[in-house]
């Protein structure tokens, strides 16, 4: 028993990589499957770093990435003869979550964020950040080091990728962060803004002040680039040799067709129409060349 329609296309497309981007790719895959039910698309979210490792090993066809490929990853791919291209598919803001019962902290400056999260931080209670805030112990959640979110966040806040205090609860699964913050009045954490929109009833956001006042991550602020330094584009990496497969080509076209809509559905922000048009062009060029 397989649901959906049989379009005649067949094949297997393995997707892995960013846990942040996972909901988007999974949603695209799910919808694609309803129209092409004989294409098998296992989607996993092992994290951007771990995903690149598999991708460059030839173990996956699509790599979800919440950052650009690093040079050592490029070297791996080259060593294994994996040729790729990058497609920008959604925009994300890293949001700072807080518990709805937290009525003191509306906004944090970038300096406060640095003080809070930097390696060796001595901030233990809310009052360490601001004297007027409760003298209650903070409980911190965040993504762990294999994630693009982690790389991006640490670079943006501490100025150095990977540098972060060690006593936070680091997980591969943003859901755990959400649940953690939801369950404790004095908790805060960082993760994809998309997860906030899936859980608006249980979570609230902390605005970020980058010197120009407090800004919340919203579609506008993220698309205008006002929500700084925590907004970023996210990509899928595509294997060129796999473009031979019709199912693969159709899937990628379909991805670009629906990603703006699914992105909103799972809580990301759509990339602009021009960007999508440009990605389409590049994809068709590559298809012309490799298929």
């Amino acid at each position, binding site marked *: *028993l397989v649901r*959906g329609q049989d379009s005649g296309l067949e094949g297997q497309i393995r997707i892995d990589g960013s846990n942040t981007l996972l909901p988007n790719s999974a949603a695209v895959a*799910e919808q694609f499957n*309803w129209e092409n039910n004989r294409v*098998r698309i296992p989607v*996993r979210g092992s994290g951007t770093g771990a995903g690149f490792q598999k991708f460059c090993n030839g173990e996956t066809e699509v790599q979800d990435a919440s950052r650009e490929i690093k040079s050592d990853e490029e070297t791996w791919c080259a060593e294994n003869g994996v040729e790729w291209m990058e497609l920008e598919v959604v925009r994300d803001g890293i949001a700072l979550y807080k518990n709805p019962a937290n009525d003191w902290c509306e906004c944090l400056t970038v300096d406060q964020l640095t003080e809070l999260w930097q390696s060796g931080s001595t901030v233990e209670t809310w009052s360490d950040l601001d004297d007027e805030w409760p003298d209650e112990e903070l409980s911190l959640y965040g993504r762990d080091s294999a994630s693009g979110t982690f790389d991006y966040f640490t670079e943006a806040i501490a100025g150095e990728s990977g540098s972060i205090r060690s006593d936070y609860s680091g997980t591969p699964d943003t859901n755990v962060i959400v649940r953690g913050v939801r369950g404790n009045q004095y908790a805060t954490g960082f993760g994809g803004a998309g997860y906030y929109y899936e859980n608006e009833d249980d979570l609230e956001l902390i605005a970020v002040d980058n010197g120009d006042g407090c800004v919340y991550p919203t579609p506008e602020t993220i698309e205008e680039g006002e929500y700084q330094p925590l907004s970023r584009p996210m990509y899928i990496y595509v294997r060129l040799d796999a473009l031979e497969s019709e199912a693969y080509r159709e899937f990628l076209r379909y991805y670009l067709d629906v990603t703006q809509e699914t992105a909103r559905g*799972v809580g990301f922000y759509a990339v602009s129409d021009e960007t999508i048009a440009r990605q389409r062009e590049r994809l068709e060029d590559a298809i012309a060349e490799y298929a």
Partner: protein
Amino acid sequence: MSTDTDTDSFDFDGSALRRKRLLGKAFVGACFAATMVGIVALIALLVDVVTEAWGWLTWEFLTYPPSRFVENYNPANYGALDTGPGGIYPALIGSIYLIVLTAIFTLFLGVGAAIYLEEYAPDTRLTTFIETNIANLAGVPSIVYGLLGLAMFVRALQTGSSLLAGALTLTLLILPIVIVSAQESLRAVPDSMRRASYGTGATKWQTIRNVVLPEAIPGIMTGIILSLSRAIGETAPILMVGAATSMFAPPRLTQPTDAFSAMPMQIFDWARLPEADFQHVAAAGIVVLLTILLLMNAVAILIRNKYNRRR
């Protein structure tokens, strides 16, 4: 009352024992309450799961693939969806296939090992060692088996995160229990049967195949099914091996190297998703899992009863 004896000094009605009797009553009360703890916990667990699942467990849930969108699971929305409802189907089939493969492997390995130990093994140090080893394997945490499956099947033997790797891992996990229960069944075959067979000039293998196994097989099957019902609920091993969570189509039994999803893994995924409604989805999945488990146990009990009646 006769007074010619010193009856009065006797404490016939045990008045001095009154405190002890109270203590005894309190103790029985405590024991009974303790017994109730387990039973009440079981009831609470079942009621909790069923109430959470109520209204979410539909025929569609059983027959449709999972979805990222929690609203797809809600029966109230079924009419308004542009795709289809969300469900557990690929994981359900994945679990069944996983169990079928595991059954085949354990039947062969478990019964083979039990036959060796009961019928062939000489009384040597090696045999004692094998038996002790089996007892110890039964106590190894299931996640360690997952690690073994990951390192040995997924990586070293290059099976990938496949149905095959999952089934092999579960096989090793339940093998000790299967062997021990199969040994018990073999031991229950009376020696007079074996002697009768040898006396007619049968070889050892003929005796085992024609006399011992047919007698022991109901007991062996009961043991295997009970072990499989443990395997079907195991999460940690298949999680380590890399069961997927969003599979649109079930794996194919003919392609054991397919990626697969399985019910416990799917339930784990749902249970940790933060949207509150996913709790209902997870509960619905649990009800399906428990129902299958119950069916397997019922089959095992049926086999055992049928077999016992014959004796």
